[in-house]
């Protein structure tokens, strides 16, 4: 069940090709039902995710952004997620400073075999964003 | 060393049938330099019966006491009774892990409990907080006649997630505490098999059978007494020993002491001070011989030296043995 009542929100996901994108595939193959708000962008590695992509998304229309990579030590490129972890942590701490709830942004690690974890992450994060509601509601009503 | 202080929840049993547990624990704590402060106006933890009524209600009976202790600003509560301990731990866990549950429980209480109390069994504070070194240090008397089987009962260490202490299948804390006193301990397999708990009254036959198993395993292991840490276990093993004998056609006559009584004996308290006369199966003969520790050690050293001096005799003995085999 989608578990999310009401209108869909815009959630952008950046998934590394080797682990989390595979994990999302695994969840799909196992038919683990998930809320439908998430839109997935495939990147080779979580280390490719410039925090500015997250900012760009949040400033231009996303209500939530999820970044998911391989577990630390298990990066296909050895170190990519170690850099990601530092940069995304920096961003997570900066967001509330500019008035964006840090709960709108989540980064985590899901391996290709963790279909169930992926389902949990998507469900929980979508619920979390729904609790906060749309971020750009004001503009929508203005426009 | 800074003195340790605990909120001491003795529990209902220790006011009645288990008075000697209370007496001996307080004495031992005095020796070990631990301060026990009784929470004012504590009430029953709810125990098993409350759990058959309602989860929230049961937690509330326990949490009333936790709230009182929380106000004392001591932080850690200790109770000798595993049943009280489990009630506190479960109430605390339920309330700290689930905000809604906490609210429901606090609704039933006058003073809310906020989750700031750690509960530990008396065995745990003796084993972990005081430590074996200190336990051994304070020994004044050797008890050479005791061969102890330590019996932990079912819920001292279980379930492991809640108890967070020792091994759930083969606990060793009590064994080590008693060993640290210089007293001989016998290992056996039934340390945690349930004795029948509170069913002594309504389902006596059940308790007889379970208690019988525990007693026989201890005797088979060569123990001549059993050490316990739970008032209910003591009651079932000691008070009901004769009921067991009658029902199962056995003839057990094995004293069941609180481990704190054994500690007290090793620390030089008299059997009278330790309420030893309250045991139904008398431990009298076993604890008659008490040798001041210095004297006892000298004795042992002399024995060892004598054995060393005659290596040839030993070799001869060994040679004889190998020939035999």
């Amino acid at each position: 069940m989608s578990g999310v009542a009401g209108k869909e929100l815009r959630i952008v996901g950046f998934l590394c090709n080797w682990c989390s994108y595979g994990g999302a595939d695994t969840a799909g193959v196992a038919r683990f039902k998930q809320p439908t708000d998430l839109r997935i962008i495939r990147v080779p590695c979580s280390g490719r995710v410039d925090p500015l992509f997250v900012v760009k998304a949040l400033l231009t229309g996303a209500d939530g952004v999820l970044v998911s990579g391989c577990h630390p030590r298990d990066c296909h490129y050895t170190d990519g997620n170690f850099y990601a972890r530092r940069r995304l942590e920096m961003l997570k701490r900066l967001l509330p400073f500019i008035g964006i709830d840090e709960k709108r942004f989540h980064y985590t690690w899901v391996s290709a075999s963790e279909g169930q974890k992926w389902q949990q992450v998507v469900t929980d994060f979508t619920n979390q964003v729904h609790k906060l509601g749309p971020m750009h509601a004001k503009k929508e009503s203005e426009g | 060393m800074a003195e340790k202080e605990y909120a001491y929840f003795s529990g209902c049993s220790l006011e009645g049938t288990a008075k000697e547990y209370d007496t001996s624990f307080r004495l031992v704590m005095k020796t070990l330099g631990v301060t026990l402060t009784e929470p004012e106006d504590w009430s029953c933890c709810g125990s098993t019966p409350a759990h058959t009524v309602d989860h929230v209600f049961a937690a509330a009976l326990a949490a009333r006491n936790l709230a009182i202790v929380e106000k004392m600003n001591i932080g850690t509560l200790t109770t000798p009774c595993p049943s009280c301990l489990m009630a506190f731990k479960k109430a605390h866990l339920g309330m700290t892990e689930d905000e809604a549950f906490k609210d429901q429980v606090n609704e039933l209480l006058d003073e809310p409990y906020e989750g700031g109390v750690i509960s530990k069994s008396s065995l745990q504070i003796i084993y972990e907080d005081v430590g074996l070194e200190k336990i051994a240090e304070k020994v004044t008397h050797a008890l050479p006649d005791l061969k102890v089987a330590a019996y932990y009962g079912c819920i001292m260490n279980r379930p492991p997630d809640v108890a967070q202490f020792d091994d759930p299948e083969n606990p060793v804390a009590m064994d080590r505490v008693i060993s640290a006193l210089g007293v001989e301990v016998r290992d056996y397999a039934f340390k945690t098999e349930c004795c029948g708990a509170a069913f002594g009254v309504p389902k006596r036959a059940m308790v007889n059978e379970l208690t019988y198993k525990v007693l026989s395993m201890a005797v088979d292991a060569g123990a001549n007494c059993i050490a316990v840490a739970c008032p209910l276990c003591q009651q079932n093993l000691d008070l009901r020993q004769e009921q067991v004998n009658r029902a199962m056609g056995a003839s057990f006559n094995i004293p069941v002491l609180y481990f704190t009584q054994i500690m007290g004996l090793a620390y030089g308290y008299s059997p009278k001070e330790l309420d030893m006369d309250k045991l139904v199966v008398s431990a009298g003969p076993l604890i008659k011989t008490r040798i001041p520790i210095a004297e006892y050690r000298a004795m042992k050293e002399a024995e060892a030296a004598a054995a060393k001096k005659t290596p040839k005799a030993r070799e001869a003995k060994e040679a004889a043995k190998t020939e035999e085999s």
Partner: protein
Amino acid sequence: MYKVYFQTYEMDTINLSEKTNWEFIEQVQKESGENLSLCYQCGNCTAGCPYTNYFDYPVSMVMRLLQTGQKDTILNSKAIWLCATCETCTTRCPCEIDVAHVMDTLRIIARRENKVSEKDIKMFYDAFLDSVKRFGRIYEVGTLLTYNIRSGHFMADADLGPKVLTKGKIRFFPTKIKGSDKVAQIFERFRTKAKKHG
């Protein structure tokens, strides 16, 4: 020595389409917080249960009856009352089900629905709780007497009396704690709340 469970009750064909009480399954899952589907019937709980010889249904069978939603059979069973919460099943369950907690939940539901098969045990528990309500603590003699009178087992443990008395193990008079009314209030509030929620 071991009792076969088929002897304890008659096995009628259970029409699962009609006789599966889905609400009951849901209720137990919700109140206990445990997922009953996790049980794969390995029998470890039964294997370790010290009381199983006295049970009409061994624990694993209680779990199975739960999975199939056999509400009446479970709530009328002796097993749920003969469980002493020794936590062996919970400790050893490979599926990490808190079985003892499920049994607790079943007792609570049985009590609520007035379906207690083991009246003696319930009476003993009630006598215990009465003492708590009146005095704030347990007054052992009183508890035993109350139980004996209510259960009709007038001489239960009478043989132990002299032992206990001569050893000075029993207090003849209850100590009433100062805050006994506070404890009684917990009982009251709980009753009012329970009534309100039906």
